Structures are given as C-alpha cells and as structure tokens.
C-alpha cells in the first residue's frame, strides 16, 4: 500500500470563521486505493474538512492537491469534475426527481452533447441519453434500487435514500469518494450491509474513500487507517488498532470502555 501514489494531499490546511478557528494546520494524505476513516467528537471540524476538500469553503491557509493538481479554492463542480465526489451528512437528494433521474444528474458531465442537440434532437442527443440510461440502470441494479427507479426520491425509505446518495456520487465517476456519516440513522443490520457495500464498491470501482463516521464498529471494521480530529486539530493517526489504544483519542472521544 505504501508504494501507491498519493491521491489526496492536504498540507497544513486551516479554516477560520471570523474569530473561530474551525480547523488548524490539518495535514492528511490519502494514497490511491486506501479506505480512511475520519473521526472525532461533534464540532471537531470533520465536516468543515470535507467542505474544504469539496470546494464549499476555501481554505484560509494551506494547500490541498488532488492527483497532483491544486484544488484549494476551486468551485465544487470543478472539484467534482477533477474526480472527488461526496455524500452529505443531512441527505441532499433531488426530492422531486425520480431515483433514476437523481443518478442521471451525476452523469451530466460525462455525456457530451450540446444544448443545440437537445433543442433539435440531433443524433448526439439520442446517443448521449442512451449511454446515460444504460449506465444508470447498471448502477441502480448494483444498489438494489431498480424496483424503485421511477419513484420520487423523497418517497424512498431512509436507508434507501442513503444508498441512492452513494450511488449518485459514484455516477460522477470519482477517484476519491467522500462519505459524510453514511451510517447515520441506520440500524445495526443496515450498518453491516453498508459496511459490505463500501468494501465492495471500493474494489469494484477502484476507489479511494474518506469516511466520516460515528459508528465505531463500522470505522474500525473497514478502515485501513484513521485520522482523529478534536477542536479543529489532528490529534492522532494510525491503524484502527493503534487508535483504539491511543490515550489522547480515548480522552477526547472514545471514552474508557472502548
């Protein structure tokens, strides 16, 4: 693993909101193919870091590179096009659109046909739409959503909405997948299924995954390495085994019995 190329490199990134330092000098590195966990108490800055990585916020200081290209301060859609897709902590689906349409949105950037082709139904339109429809069906099948493909996405069950969000992120064909609390609100059974799904898509799509999660069984179960944030600072980094026994992490987050 160590020989793999560095995909994501965050160098001493900081973010301030007014006088509040949400993140201070955070440095993390993800090599291609790794599955990395990001944990920490509420308000530690995990989602802020995600927002820096996906362009929602600009880093106040520091540098972020994806695949050697600087992405700090780039717009979210540019970062997505460069190969980083995300899911959201509070699900953000396109509620009035169908399940299939939700996924088709992420293929928008990959199907190349112009506005003119759509106006006049030029051959490019049919070719592009056919390609989108086929890819969408494939993904729906993988995620077990084929049955509900014409349902409005807001009518799906909570677990299915979470799965659809991951499917939609994969449709953007990312190299780096950022999952923000994918197991939030799931029961233990669903969490186990999600764990298998995450492992499986990582192999299948050759992904590098960064995962925020509070469910320790999930994080400890799937991650190669874990970064721990507390009050905007990185307090530990290492394999699940080492994190479990790290004094600072136990004090700040895990508690005694962990």
């Amino acid at each position, binding site marked *: 693993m160590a020989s793999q190329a560095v995909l994501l490199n965050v160098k001493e990134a900081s973010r301030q909101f007014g006088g509040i330092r949400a993140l201070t000098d955070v440095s993390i590195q993800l090599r291609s193919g790794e599955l990395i966990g990001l944990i920490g108490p509420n308000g530690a800055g995990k989602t802020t870091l995600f927002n820096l990585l996906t362009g929602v916020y600009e880093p106040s200081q520091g540098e972020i590179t994806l695949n050697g290209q600087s992405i700090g301060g780039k717009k979210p859609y540019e970062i997505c096009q460069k190969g980083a*897709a995300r899911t959201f902590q509070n699900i*953000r689906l396109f509620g009035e659109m169908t399940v299939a349409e939700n996924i088709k949105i992420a293929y928008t950037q990959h199907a190349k046909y112009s*506005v003119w082709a759509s106006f006049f139904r030029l051959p490019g339109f049919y070719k592009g739409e056919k390609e989108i429809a086929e890819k969408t069906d494939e993904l729906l099948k993988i995620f077990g959503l084929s049955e509900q493909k014409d349902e409005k996405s807001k009518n799906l069950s909570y677990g299915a909405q979470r799965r659809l969000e991951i499917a939609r992120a994969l449709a953007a064909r990312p190299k780096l997948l950022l999952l923000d609390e994918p197991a939030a609100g799931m029961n233990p059974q669903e969490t186990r299924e999600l764990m298998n799904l995450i492992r499986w898509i990582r192999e299948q799509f050759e992904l590098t995954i960064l995962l925020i999660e509070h469910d320790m069984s999930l994080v400890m179960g799937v991650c190669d390495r874990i970064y721990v944030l507390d009050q905007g600072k990185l307090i530990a980094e290492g394999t699940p085994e080492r994190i479990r026994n790290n004094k600072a992490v136990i004090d700040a987050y895990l508690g005694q019995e962990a």
Partner: protein
Amino acid sequence: MAVLRKHGSFRLMVIMQKLGSFWMFLAGSLVVFAVIQVLLSTGAMGDVFQSTVVLIGINIILTVSLNLINGITGQFSLGHAGFMSVGAYASAIMTLDFNVPFPLALIIGGCVAALCGAIIGIPTLRLKGDYLAIATLGFGEIIRIVFLNTDYVGGAAGLSGIPNKTTWVWLFFFTLVSVILIQNFIRSKHGRACIAIRENEIAAEAMGINTTTYKVIAFMIGAFFAGIAGGLSAHFFYVINPSSFGFMKSFEILVMVVLGGLGSTSGAIIGAIVLTLLLTLLQPYPELRMIIYSASLVLMMIFRPGGLLGTKEFTLSFLNKKEGDPHGIASRSA
C-alpha cells in the same frame, strides 16, 4: 373485460399510446390549428375571436418560457415583460427600417432579447429568491425606461405603423415550435441539470454541474422566447409603447404560470389559455372584471395551491395502466 378491451374505442387508445406523447401532441395541435383556421377563414367568428386566439398564442409562449426560468430552474424572475419589450422593439425596427422578412425579424428580436438576458442574468443570478425577484423587476423597469427615453423608438408614444404580419398561421407555427423546443430542452440532460438546481443547488454543484452556467442558459432561452412573443405581439397590434411592458405585464405572465402549476409546461399552457379567456370574457363587465379575476385566483390558491396541474405534466400514461395486464398493479405494489 378482456374481450371488450380488444374492441372499438380502446383499440384507438392503444394506437394513440403507441404513437407516443410527442406525436399525439403534434396531432392534437394540428387539429386545433385546422379547426381555428376553418373558423377564421369562414368568418364564422368575429374580430374578438381572432385577437383572443392570437393573445392566447402569445401568452402561451410567454408562460412556457417563464416557466423554464421560474418553475424548472427555480430562479424567481419578474423581468419577463422587459425581455418581451426588447423583442418587440427589435423586431419592429427590423421590419420598419430594414425591411427584414417577418420570421427573420422575429428571430433577430429573440436573439437581442437573449443577449439582454445574458447581460442581466450574469450579475443577478448570483442572487437568490426574493433578492433575485427584486433585481429582475428592477432590470425590467430599466429596460422600459430606456425605451421611454429613446427618441429613435418614439419615446413615450412608442412605435406605430408596424406592418400587421402576425397571421394565425405564423402565430401557430411559432407557438408550436417554441413549446416543442423548450420541452426538448427540459427533457434532456441540460433540463435535468436545471431541475436539479431547483431541487438542491448545493448537491447539484457537488455533482459536477456548473450552476451559474445553467442558470444563465435557462435565463437566455426564456428571454429569447419572450422576445419572439414580443415580436408577434408588435406585428399584430400595429403599435407598441413602453407602458404596455410594465411590471404589471410581468405579473400577469407569472400569475398564469402559477395558476397552471409552476414547473409544468402543460400547466403553463393551460394557465395561459384559461386566464386569457377569462379576461376576454369579462371584458364587457369592466366593473366586475378585476373582482372576478382576483377572486378566482384566491379560490385557486385555497383549493389547489400547487396550481391546476402542480408540477405534473398532462400525459397519456393513464392509458398505459388500463392497457396493461393485471401485473401492472401487482408489480408496482411489490
């Protein structure tokens, strides 16, 4: 039942279903065209009928194009009358001063309006909700004031003596093409991107959609067709002046769209037809006209707050359910 279904009218419905909604729409439109053409050419109906029909056509173009901006892309614009006036003036100048053929003049009018749409859209579309509404309202008024103070286009008196070239045939042609083109846009990846912006702008952007570009594109397309509608109206009523393109006109179009159902093209068409007819029928009762008009809108908002069609489209898919075997229902509930 199964035997019954194989016969008579049902077979016709199956054929209609197989033809697909686009061809059905086209066929239906041509029937409407033929009926009205006959009524007009035999002189069975008077001048009021003709001007009502033309107004309905113009309003359909206006509502369908405004629906693209407000209903589909979710950007609340109140400047539609402004774009309409740009198209009206530009095309009138083309036919009056440059002898440009009528259809070409309309398209030039639309292009100038689209250009204005881009110029206004690029700075204002970073605003959201009420702020965008106020900014577009302001720009609509600026356009009106500019025409009011430009001597070349007649100032407050406006332009008159515009040749009457908006015939029923041209009107029908431009209305039909406008609706088809806008609907084609909506039903493509570009249209889906616009809907995604309406549904959740942050998620749309995170999925690789350049939201600013798509908003400006929707704005330009809307403005283009508003310009076409303006040109058609200028070449029907002989006279245009700035006062007919005030913000009340923008509101009128918006009311039609909302009444039909924001986000639905067929709703926008129905809204345009219903409200134009209502206003025309009430013409003989000027003292009651605005009361009934407003009361019907209030009732509408109480009983169908989402508009006549909501975000749904009027389709023939209900035929599909009848046609389908019993599995239709079973598989859906499973």
